[in-house]
């Protein structure tokens, strides 16, 4: 068929003239592979002639046509006109700010093809130093909640904005002309622009002429705050109300220093931190900022490491990280403060009894001693909302000279301005029929107010009720007009969280539904602007004017407003220039404080409402990621429960068992008139005589539409049916308890029912397993060799039985990654990890981890790629992971149960990417293999699902797709990937796994690859610090370091060669690429010292501890 005839284009070619040769080279100036192809000499000898070519062409066209007939329908809409700044496949990051009434953070939002899909902290700008809590990370999912309000509604009926606005305006005008009161009710409003709008609103409807509290203008000393005194009440009032009130601090500061403020705390300067019931790493004030600052003081290699005392009743995140933790009842907080006051200031609080146990008193005295020792560099904080307590705290901090270092009265925090008294008045007013109209935003008092029932009753007496809300929630369903609100990621806003700090949030997506921001709604009703639809820039323009008027003149960095504005929007804020802290004379009345504290009566059972890091105050109860997030302490998902001391539970005969088929006892909690039933959870560290109940549950009890995940689902995935035929909400609402103050006194009785809790961790001790968790004290760390607290495992080998470290033994050939190219490694500092769970949520967001629902979690099938193991010490462990003296007599049995007052270790656990991975050798089809960069990879497509790898994984981090989570009916109500809208949050870089395959942490390989690509395009090596994983990015304490282990100068390499570094379960010989670093507690621990210091001395060891060999202490003999 072929022909060997040659053809040429012209004589030039035939003669191969120099010009022709030159031109032919220049035809493709870039070195494309085509050149190489054409340069192939054999090409000319090819036998494919024209006829053959046409035959092939015809055949291929026919084949392609045939194949095309069966092509699946792909639902993808291409960009016909490519938007500027959007490159398909490339993420775009926007700096923004998150504020929801309780959490505040400067964030970066990742968008892909115009969809926000990931939120992390902004490490470069803002007061929160790049920290985010799990709720902030998870808020991106709420954007795609199909149960959000999609239109404004009037009496529950869909309406258009035009009709809605005219009715509301008419109602407002009528109310104003009737002289009736118009109430604006919101959570603490820290937006200067919104406050401007409120001001104009007031002016329009005859309000007061109050100058906004958070006026943008600030003079040198921050004196602008004084202007708030000139208030003249009109018939429009703005009341701010927060779910969690910190009013006590403001009141106490007013009394002590003449300023009703919350000061700025700086935990990074505090060498001694004493907290009396303040969970400052989770829920107390600006917890994100404090967490980051606290972590700075936790480096055992630095000049000093802070010492943290914690006195509390519930086991909180902060308490679990304390060096010394004392268990007190909430009614005893005053007693602790009294002892501190006596030891530090000199005088005890008159009339305050001392019912504390000796153990606690000793700890309090030690705390006092340490506070005094670090005078001027210490900090005492208290979680109580009682003014009297905070006055005493102020007195002690004053005596400690802390007001020039760790506490700054000149930089007040504007968050949490809850006006509790005005709120109570409002409820009275409403019920008395004195309120003509109420407009609410960023608040849900029917649910979250302690007196929500009467608020609800009051609403019925208000003629015009307007709620600006994202959901038809408890309050919205009781309002006539519900203005559908944007998700925060859809709106512009500005914030003034602290006096010296201003920030901006920018929209990262056009509103998905017919919604608009609260500010825009207020502007429309105040007549400032007309609403012009989704793309309205009214509020944006308003903000810009405000910033030009107030912000721009107060800075010197930028010459033009445009530059100033662009940069501020680009960075979301400027970094804080904090005013200097100046001490002020303490003027508190200690006598009346003492009197008031003495009057606080405890009870046999004190109930403490608290906030979880996952659910918080319940705003995002419909967020499945948060519901499925194991609580930082209890590891329970999807539920609310009563935490009780195991001692009390034993006495009452409640079931302490946890597990799939070990249901918990249900108790009836009664406080005054309120009763409800909740399961009871055994919580080591809970003070006997107290119980904790998390807030934020029991949402949507009347079947409100607040997101599918707020309701209980059954074994086959359908919603459980309640008594009235509606859905059953999760848990019970504990907000009514807040009526009584910090805690409520009540009773608990056995309801003689059982209830299944879904717990991801049911065994709470580490069984003295020293190669999993290693812990030591600062003293030992500073004075002893690494062998004392971080001994290496060794084996004997050869004729002479030489001891060699375990790392020198290899069952398999070494992977070539160990010295060539990249080798991705991770180091996790157990000393920094506080167990908050932000990493877990960001991992879920980054890697499309499915949500499986309560029933599946109960069956031990949660899919989280990253989990945080939480271990308590048992009675015979002087520290977590050590076997104390008691082990000789009690053996394993003594290690089984957690101590009633345990030490806690949080340990993030994910795939260790072992270089000798046990999972890789057992897979029959080689679906999990090792990359040449040290990663243990999963080829989902190749996996046949024998689950052998999962069984053989010593860390138990592999997750099997037991069902088809993206489509099986059991997960319809819980897994966002089953919802057309919810699917939009999926990360397009990560595949959604099908049923029957194994999955696990990939070290965010998609991020590694894209970083490599960027570096490659720029023709440079990867810079250390450029590599990050989702977990390392969001860690508020920077506990996780990732990088190239083969880069000997990298942070991760240095971190892993540190004397604190060890590999969990190293002795199995699997050579993981994850290192942990020994936790160092800043405490005195004689038992541990006896163990670790003697352990180090070989001579002694032979006599004493070698006898333990039989019980399994030693295959390792490294000392």
């Amino acid at each position: 068929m072929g022909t060997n005839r040659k053809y040429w284009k012209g004589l030039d070619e035939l003669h191969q003239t120099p010009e022709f040769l030159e031109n032919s080279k220049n035809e493709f100036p870039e070195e494309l592979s085509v050149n190489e192809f054409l340069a192939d000499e054999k090409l000319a000898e090819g036998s494919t002639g024209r006829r053959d070519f046409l035959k092939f062409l015809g055949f291929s066209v026919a084949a392609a046509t045939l194949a095309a007939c069966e092509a699946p329908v792909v639902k993808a809409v291409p960009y016909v006109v490519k938007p500027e700044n959007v490159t398909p496949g490339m993420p775009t990051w926007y700096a923004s700010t998150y504020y929801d009434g309780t959490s505040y953070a400067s964030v970066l939002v990742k968008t892909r093809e115009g969809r926000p899909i990931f939120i992390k902290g902004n490490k470069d700008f803002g007061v929160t130093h790049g920290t985010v809590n799990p709720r902030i990370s998870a808020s991106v999912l709420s954007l795609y909640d199909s149960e959000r309000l999609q239109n404004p509604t009037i009496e529950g009926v869909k309406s258009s904005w035009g009709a809605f606005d005219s009715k509301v305006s008419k109602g407002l005008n009528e109310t104003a002309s009737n002289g009736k009161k118009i109430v604006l009710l919101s959570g603490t409003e820290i937006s200067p622009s919104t406050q401007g709008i409120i001001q104009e609103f007031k002016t329009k409807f005859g309000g007061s002429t109050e100058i906004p509290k958070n006026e943008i203008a600030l003079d040198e000393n921050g004196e602008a705050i004084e202007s708030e005194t000139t208030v003249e009440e009109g018939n429009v009032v703005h009341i701010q109300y927060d779910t969690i009130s910190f009013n006590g601090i403001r009141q106490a500061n007013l009394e002590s220093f003449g300023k009703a403020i919350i000061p700025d705390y700086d935990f990074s300067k505090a060498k001694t931190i004493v907290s009396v019931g303040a969970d400052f790493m989770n829920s107390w004030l600006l917890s994100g900022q404090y967490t980051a600052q606290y972590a700075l003081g936790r480096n055992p290699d630095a000049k000093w490491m802070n010492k943290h005392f914690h006195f509390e009743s519930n086991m909180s995140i902060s308490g679990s990280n304390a060096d010394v933790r004392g268990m007190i009842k909430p009614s005893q907080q005053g007693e602790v403060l009294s002892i501190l006051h006596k030891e530090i200031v000199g005088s005890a609080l008159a009339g305050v009894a001392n019912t504390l146990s000796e153990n606690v008193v000793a700890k309090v005295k030690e705390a006092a001693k340490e506070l005094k020792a670090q005078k001027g560099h210490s900090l005492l904080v208290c979680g109580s909302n009682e003014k009297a307590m905070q006055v005493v705290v102020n007195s002690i901090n004053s005596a400690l000279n802390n007001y020039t270092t760790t506490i700054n009265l000149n930089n007040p925090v504007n968050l949490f301005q809850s006006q509790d008294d005005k709120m109570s008045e409002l409820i009275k007013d409403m019920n008395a029929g004195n309120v003509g109209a109420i407009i609410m935003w960023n608040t849900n008092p029917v649910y979250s107010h302690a007196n929500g029932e009467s608020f609800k009753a009051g609403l019925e007496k208000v003629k015009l009720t307007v709620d600006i809300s994202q959901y038809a929630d408890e309050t919205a369903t009781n309002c006539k007009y519900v203005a559908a609100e944007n998700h925060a990621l859809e709106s512009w806003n500005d914030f003034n969280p602290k006096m010296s700090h201003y920030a901006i949030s920018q929209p990262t997506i056009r509103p998905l539904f017919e919604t608009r921001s609260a500010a825009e709604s207020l502007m429309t009703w105040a007549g400032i602007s007309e609403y012009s639809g989704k793309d309205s820039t009214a509020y944006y323009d308003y903000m810009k004017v405000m910033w030009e008027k107030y912000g721009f003149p107060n800075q010197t960095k930028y010459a033009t407003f445009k530059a100033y504005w662009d940069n501020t929007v680009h960075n979301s804020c400027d970094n804080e220039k904090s005013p200097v802290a100046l001490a002020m004379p303490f003027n508190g009345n200690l006598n009346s404080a003492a009197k008031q504290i003495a009057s606080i009566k405890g009870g046999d059972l004190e109930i403490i409402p608290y906030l979880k890091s996952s659910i918080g105050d319940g705003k995002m109860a419909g967020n499945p990621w948060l519901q499925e997030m194991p609580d930082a302490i209890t590891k329970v998902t999807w539920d609310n429960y009563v935490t009780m001391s195991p001692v009390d539970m034993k006495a009452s005969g409640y079931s302490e068992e946890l597990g799939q088929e070990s249901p918990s006892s249900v108790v009836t909690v009664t406080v005054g008139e309120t009763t409800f039933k909740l399961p009871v959870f055994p919580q080591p560290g809970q003070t006997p005589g107290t119980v904790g109940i998390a807030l934020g549950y029991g949402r949507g009890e009347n079947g409100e539409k607040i997101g599918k995940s707020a309701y209980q689902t059954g074994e086959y995935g359908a919603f459980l049916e309640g008594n009235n035929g509606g859905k059953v909400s999760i848990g019970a609402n504990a907000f009514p308890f807040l009526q009584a103050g910090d805690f409520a006194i009540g009773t608990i009785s056995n309801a003689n029912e059982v209830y299944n809790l879904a717990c991801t961790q049911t065994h709470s001790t580490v069984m003295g397993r020293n190669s999993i968790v290693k812990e030591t004290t600062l003293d030992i760390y500073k004075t002893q060799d690494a062998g004392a607290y971080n001994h290496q495992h060794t084996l004997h080998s050869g004729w002479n039985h030489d001891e060699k470290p375990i790392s020198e033994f290899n069952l398999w050939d070494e992977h070539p990654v160990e010295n060539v190219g990249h080798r991705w490694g991770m180091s996790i500092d157990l000393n920094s990890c506080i167990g908050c769970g932000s990493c877990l949520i960001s991992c879920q967001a980054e890697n499309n981890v499915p949500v499986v629902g309560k029933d599946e979690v109960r069956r031990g099938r949660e899919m989280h790629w990253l989990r945080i193991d939480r271990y308590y010490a048992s009675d015979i462990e002087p520290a977590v992971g050590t076997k104390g003296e008691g082990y000789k007599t009690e053996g394993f049995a003594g290690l089984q149960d957690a101590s009633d007052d345990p030490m806690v270790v949080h340990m993030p656990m994910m795939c260790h990417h072992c270089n000798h991975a046990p999972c890789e050798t057992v897979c029959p089809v080689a679906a999990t293999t090792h990359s040449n960069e040290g990663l243990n990879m999963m080829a989902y497509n190749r996996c046949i699902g024998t689950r052998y790898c999962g069984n053989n994984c010593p860390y138990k981090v592999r997750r099997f797709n037991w069902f088809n989570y993206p489509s099986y009916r059991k997960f319809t109500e819980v897994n966002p990937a089953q919802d057309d809208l919810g699917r939009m949050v999926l990360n397009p870089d990560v595949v959604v796994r099908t049923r029957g395959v194994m999955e696990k942490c990939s070290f965010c390989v998609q991020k590694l690859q894209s970083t490599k690509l960027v570096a490659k395009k720029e023709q440079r090596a990867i810079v250390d610090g450029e590599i990050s994983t989702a977990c390392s990015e969001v860690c508020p304490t920077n506990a996780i370091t990732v990088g190239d282990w083969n880069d000997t100068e990298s942070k991760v390499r240095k971190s892993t060669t540190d004397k604190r570094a060890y590999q969990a379960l190293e002795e199995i010989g699997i050579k993981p690429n994850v290192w942990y670093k020994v936790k160092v507690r800043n405490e005195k621990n004689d038992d541990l010292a006896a163990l670790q210091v003697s352990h180090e001395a070989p001579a002694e060891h032979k006599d004493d501890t070698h006898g333990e060999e039989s019980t399994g202490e030693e295959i390792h003999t490294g000392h």
Partner: protein
Amino acid sequence: MHKESAIREPLILGHKTYHDITEDVCRSIEGKAPRNWYIMFGIALLVGLYGVGCILYLLGVGIGTWGLNKTVEWAWDITNFVWWVGIGHAGTLISAVLMLFRQKWRMAINRSAEAMTIFAVFMAGMFPLIHMGRLWVGYWVLPLPNQFGSLWVNFNSPLLWDVFAISTYLSVSFVFWYIGLIPDFATIRDRAKSPVAIKAYGLMSFGWSGRAKHWNRFEIVTLVLAGLATPLVFSVHSIVSFDFATSVIPGWHTTIFPPYFVAGAVFSGFAMVQTLLLVLRKAMKLEAYIHTKHVEYMNIVIMVTGSIVGVAYLTELFMSWYSGVEYEAYAFLNRATGPYWWAYTCMMSANVLSPQFMWFKKLRRSLLFTFFISIIVNIGMWFERFVIIVTSIHQDYLPSSWSMFYPTWVDIGVYVGTIGLFFVFYMAYVRYFPVLAISEVKTILKSSGESYKNGSAELHHSDDAHTAEEE
């Protein structure tokens, strides 16, 4: 002819002739099946179909319909697999090893034992298949040339070794069994009356004519296959044990596993043979061929292998203490005293204690007691596998992941279903196949038949000799 000592108990009781043997075995094939057979077959079929239903549900919905979780990723599936493979061990041992050792008593039981083996291996083989998350791509475990480039199986994986071991074992056992059946099929063919039976048995007997050359080849092939099958007896369960032994999980990672698993398999296999044959001999009136002496022999095997298993259990316990590895120590302590203590107790008493009764001659010759013990051993061996698999992984290295395993109705349904299916096969076999190796049993009639041994056969000598030659 081979002479046998007079004090040795005869292997064929009563006054049997060659013709009687043929009649006794063919009776059930040629006659009508009793009502009980239909009832039993019906029950087995129903249970089997229920099992098939459960498997279909499992395949339709996902492995999540079982009670497995992130910690215990194998439980009943692999337990049942190993249990069935173990049961399938006796057949080849009896037919191959005992043959090489010239144990004539095996002739009464080898046919049924081999049939049991094959059906048990069918059941066993099903579990590794259905336990896969994606059965439809299960063929990827075979080293087939493929379009995925150089994608090949992982020869390091014991699961892959399993694939080879089980398939080899199944095919060799099947061939061995079938070769033995050929002369007997020919006998049935020759006696058959209905054209269908003539055709069917004619096909199955491969044109056997009984010529000396056929017999010669038959003997050679049998011997060769016996030689081939003997190592398989040891290899299959050794390899199955590698699934555990090569892992890093304390309680699995044990060098003692291969011999211990083989002993356990023989133990459970013989127990199952006892269970089946004690019923079979009664139902099919084969008491003359399978009698107390056979049962006693098998009981001795059970006793010995049971004791080996017991020693293995104790060795494991000792090693866990002596090794000084804390995970190992904990794993075994937990096994014996942890939340699954009841399974461990079950296993210990059923597998170690119960066979010890066989030291008493009276007990090991009691058919009723043997039947009882054989059931106990079957249960005990199921628990052994459950204990090894579940108690080792449910509390392994990281206490944070410790969990329990609770079976679901699908777990139970699939397991019970395989028992049903097994009996469907077995009942069909009993009905249509010669349950005794006719030709083989005839070879021992004169050396080990009761009437020949004590001389009473002399009376009928001439007749019998005559008929026998005609047969």
